[in-house]
């Protein structure tokens, strides 16, 4: 039975596949897929190094603090960070009092609701609160930034490239794709998947933030710092993870060597294959 029906089933699938293949090949030759501006002008993130890169990488806390400052003063106007709590900022090297102060001074307050009177109000943030969600009224939907560097391929470099990638639409693009002109209210950026995004260049000029540690606040520096901060925000436990990893690998390596010697010892009197 199997030997009778097997080849028949095989032929059935084979012919159906050839049918699809033939039709597909015909279409591919007759009407090849048109080139698109996204396909030709989209760029992969720039090659940029972060202190936390690689198995030996560690966060540069000074840089994370600067990046947090950029987030607070620039990005947080529109972008939420709902998975990060104020208490988490202690990991950037802030003292307890500093964390308290940051929470207290945060622009968006925590909403309150009195169940007895039905009154709604506001109170200051405290360290155990999560960074309040921003309600954005403008055009577009600014994504939450807590996981952005994990939600994009090569996320840290992507954020840095996007922030420093704003430019005039290339003349070559317009010549080739006259319909692909950046619409009003959008901005051309080759690092963005469809080339035009609703966010105006957020970090536009040097010294947009005043760094407390004396680092020169160039556009490049600020972009890199905030990208580093967002890498931290997406996975604050990264340093701990790598540190644990080395201990685990060290142990496993020793255990595996012992296991190999044990295996050799056990098999010493028997020839295997």
């Amino acid at each position, binding site marked *: 039975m199997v030997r009778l029906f097997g080849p028949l089933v095989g032929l059935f699938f084979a*012919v159906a596949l050839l049918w699809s293949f033939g039709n*597909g090949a015909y279409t591919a030759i007759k009407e090849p897929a048109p080139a698109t501006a996204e396909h030709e002008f989209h760029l992969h993130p720039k090659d940029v190094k972060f202190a936390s890169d690689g198995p030996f990488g560690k966060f540069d806390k000074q840089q994370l603090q600067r990046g947090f400052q950029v987030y607070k003063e620039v990005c947080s106007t529109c972008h939420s960070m709902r998975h990060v709590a104020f208490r988490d900022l202690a990991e950037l090297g802030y003292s307890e009092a500093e964390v308290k102060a940051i929470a207290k001074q945060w622009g968006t307050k925590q909403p309150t609701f009195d169940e007895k009177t039905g009154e709604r109000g506001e109170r200051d943030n405290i360290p155990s609160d999560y960074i309040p969600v921003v309600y954005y009224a403008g055009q577009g939907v600014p994504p939450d930034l807590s996981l952005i560097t994990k939600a994009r391929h090569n996320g840290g470099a992507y954020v840095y490239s996007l922030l420093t990638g704003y430019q005039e639409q290339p003349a070559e693009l317009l010549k080739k794709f006259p319909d692909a002109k950046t619409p009003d209210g959008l901005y051309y950026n080759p690092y963005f998947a469809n080339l035009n995004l609703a966010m105006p260049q957020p970090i536009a000029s040097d010294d947009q933030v005043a760094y407390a540690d004396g680092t020169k606040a160039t556009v490049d520096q600020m972009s890199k710092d905030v990208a580093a901060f967002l890498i931290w925000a997406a996975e604050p*436990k990264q340093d701990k*993870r790598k540190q644990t990893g080395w201990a685990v*690998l060290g142990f496993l390596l020793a255990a595996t060597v012992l*296991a190999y010697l044990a295996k050799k*010892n056990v098999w010493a009197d028997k020839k295997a294959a």
Partner: protein
Amino acid sequence: MSFAWANEYKPSNGLMQWLDEKLPLPRFVYNAVGAGYPVPRNLNYMWNFGVLAGFCLVLQIVTGVILAMHYAPNALVAFDSTEHIMRDVNWGWMLRYAHANGASAFFVVVYLHIFRGFFYSSYKAPREMIWLLGVVIFLLMMATAFMGYVLPWGQMSFWGAKVITGLFGAIPVVGEPLQVWLLGGFAPDNAALNRFFSLHFLLPFVIAGVIILHIWALHIPGSSNPTGVEVKQESDTVPFHPYYTAKDGFGLGVFLLIYCAVLFFAPNALGHPDNYIPANPLSTPAHIVPEWYFWPFYAILRAFTYDFFFIPAKLMGVLAMFGAILVWFFLPWLDTSPVRSGHYRPLFRKFFWFGLIPAMAVLFYCGGAPAQEPYVMLSQLASLYYFAHFLIILPIVSSIEKPEPLPFSITEAVLGKDESAVLNANPAAA
């Protein structure tokens, strides 16, 4: 069961003797994976993966049960509870990465285990039942992994669930009501997430049950071996313990080194970034791709792009995708060559290394690539070969092939000579 020369369990003290009389559990273990199970002495490292697969299942159950203590299967909070595990639960990040990468490790190990079965024809008599149960385990693993990937409720979770449950919609007449019934709604939502969580928790224990049957069935004929020549005598075997426990111990060490290197230094390398974006039914990702271990079958699904007579392309794709695995059930009867090991099958070997393996590699690559040319055409050719290999080539090869001479016994294959072979070949000389 087992061979006449198998060691017999002897309780080492009064307590064990007492236990052996009441509930002979130590005797059972001794006969299953101890010194009481004689195993061919010539097993190579390809025979390590069964034990490793068992290890992966235990790893997944242990990490999974703890994750379930912190996870909330509700569409409103599932994504946030996953992040809560990553950020606030003690060692939660390690548990979740261990579980997510553990699924990948499980599939790596099982694919190698299946590859071993293909090359050495482990599916042939008298081991058909072991193979059939193995395919059942693989299908259960796929279902479990798919439902597990939905639980974090990210973009790929949601859209993956939508695409895969949409496959049932391709079934004529009952398809659409069936899809709605399975999902508990018109699109994946809370009802779907809840039942997926429930089943994702249940199925691993079903897998454990089928594994017990798989091992039980294995112990009746005993393990196969790289020559494919059956065990004839005591000198062909060694006791499982300590010989193979020692060898599996080393294999486990190597496996853990690779697995932990990924877990601690590239934990997101095998996942898709989109799954760190919360599920949004209104925004379709540019490319919906399943986890890597489904890629070959996903490529087969997408290879059918044109309706075939009255059969819609989508239904053809669904039939082919399930058919691609179901065909494994028939392998013991499609491959009729009496020789098991690929080492002694020159023609089979050629089609295996230059046909099946490249076709699988192409399907794997194309399944992860976007659905555009040339990937679609490549996967059509590779799928064609895939079906032709199992259903047409294999039966023909096994009937026309002239196998190379087999060794008389495992002992001869290992030591170069076997006293009993000489006796058998020339009885007069004895």
